């Protein structure tokens, strides 16, 4: 069996250099930046505030509304600005990934807006987005049970690798390209998993375990960033 080296020379379970910062947008109620190498996401939280239009209000519990947006300059080929099929889908996915940890039951008729902007993309943007959004929500003082951390697992032929970059995402040799973004809470509960490509069920279990370990590392980075801002 031929083994493949990662294009940037990383180890198989090595995450790109992570950077996290809280309070990057002064006008927002909560904000954060998170990056995996060249992938940079910023998240801004506004609210809780009254939901408008009124017919969208839910008197039983609060609503979480996420908007994922890639800046037109975030990739080498300029992308058309504005919402697209892909970004609306990812917005919904991020909402579902974050909702289980939020405790917004008592915010009836209100909405919490989360705006995620990808200012530079090199794959794993939704994972960076989720990581930034969870920090921004905590920074906004929203009641939450836990933080979430997200990472993408991929495959170079048969070998599992952590935190894909663009080149690895498009890896065509062997079994073809596979991308599995997974989100975990710190307590080890999964809130989101997606699969793009093919994988054997046995190997998927391995991938989940690998993600669990990687999310612990990401959590430490998020924790450190949140603690730093308060000490100032």
């Amino acid at each position, binding site marked *: 069996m031929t083994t493949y080296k990662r294009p940037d020379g990383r180890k198989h379970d090595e995450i790109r250099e992570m950077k996290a910062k809280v309070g990057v947008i002064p006008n927002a109620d909560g904000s954060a930046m998170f990056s995996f190498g060249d992938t940079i996401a910023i998240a801004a939280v506004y609210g809780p505030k009254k939901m408008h239009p009124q017919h969208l209000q839910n008197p039983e519990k609060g609503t979480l509304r996420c908007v994922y947006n890639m800046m037109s300059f975030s990739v080498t080929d300029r992308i058309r600005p504005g919402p697209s099929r892909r970004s609306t889908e990812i917005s919904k996915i991020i909402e579902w990934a974050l909702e289980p940890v939020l405790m917004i039951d008592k915010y009836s008729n209100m909405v919490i807006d989360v705006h995620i902007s990808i200012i530079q993309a090199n794959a794993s943007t939704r994972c960076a987005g989720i990581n930034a959004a969870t920090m921004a929500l*905590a920074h906004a003082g929203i009641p939450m049970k836990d933080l979430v951390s997200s990472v993408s697992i991929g495959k170079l032929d048969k070998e599992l690798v952590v935190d894909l970059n663009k080149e690895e995402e498009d890896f065509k040799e062997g079994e073809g390209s596979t991308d599995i973004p997974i989100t975990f809470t710190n307590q080890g509960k999964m809130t989101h998993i997606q699969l793009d490509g093919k994988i054997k069920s046995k190997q998927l279990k391995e991938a989940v375990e690998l993600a669990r370990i990687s999310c612990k590392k990401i959590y430490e980075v998020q924790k450190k960033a949140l603690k730093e801002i308060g*000490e100032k």
Partner: protein
Amino acid sequence: MTRKIIIPGEVIVKGEGYLPGEGTERIGDEIVAMKYGLAEESNKLVKIISLSGVYQPRRGNAVIAKVVRVTFNGWFMDINASDDAFLSLTEVPRYVNKDGLEEVMDIGDMIVAKIWNINKRGIDLSIKSRGLGKIEEGIIVKINSNKVPRVIGKEGSMINLIKDNTNCNITVGQNGLIWIKGDKVEDELYAKKAILFVTEKSFIEGLTDEVKKWFEERKGGKK
């Protein structure tokens, strides 16, 4: 106990003896944070003080509000929180003509009010107390509501220092709006500058001394 920064899901203390206060929950024999902020423990009660986020109205808070809507029996006010507050006609200690509510307070007017009740239906305000009522003159400064305790200082030490040095009357609303009233506009702007200095340096220890120094530097006509 020393205060420390806590993130959601983090265990603050272990042990059966503690009581979970605001922003915390008991899971097994651990007190776990449900919010980001400073954890504080007193008399075995553990609670979290917010560092950021929107203003959370509390009963008894004095706030500065702006009239946004006039109805037949009261006024709706913007108090810088997630929900508008209501000032009922019965909570105004003077005679009001039922046909002329806007003659007393019109849209855009600012008042100092107290939150006397919060329930499912909304927030109720009152101006039936000394020092409450309509703001006729002066300037209003908006700051982050989480920094209000620093502007007031321990037992009002900071706010009194600013009042004494600027000859202004200052009312701090818990919602982050501050009303400054002085004899001269220059005094009011001076007080505003001082307050913004406090909010900028809010993380410094011994801030009151720092502000004293700030005032001394500016003494003697130079403002």
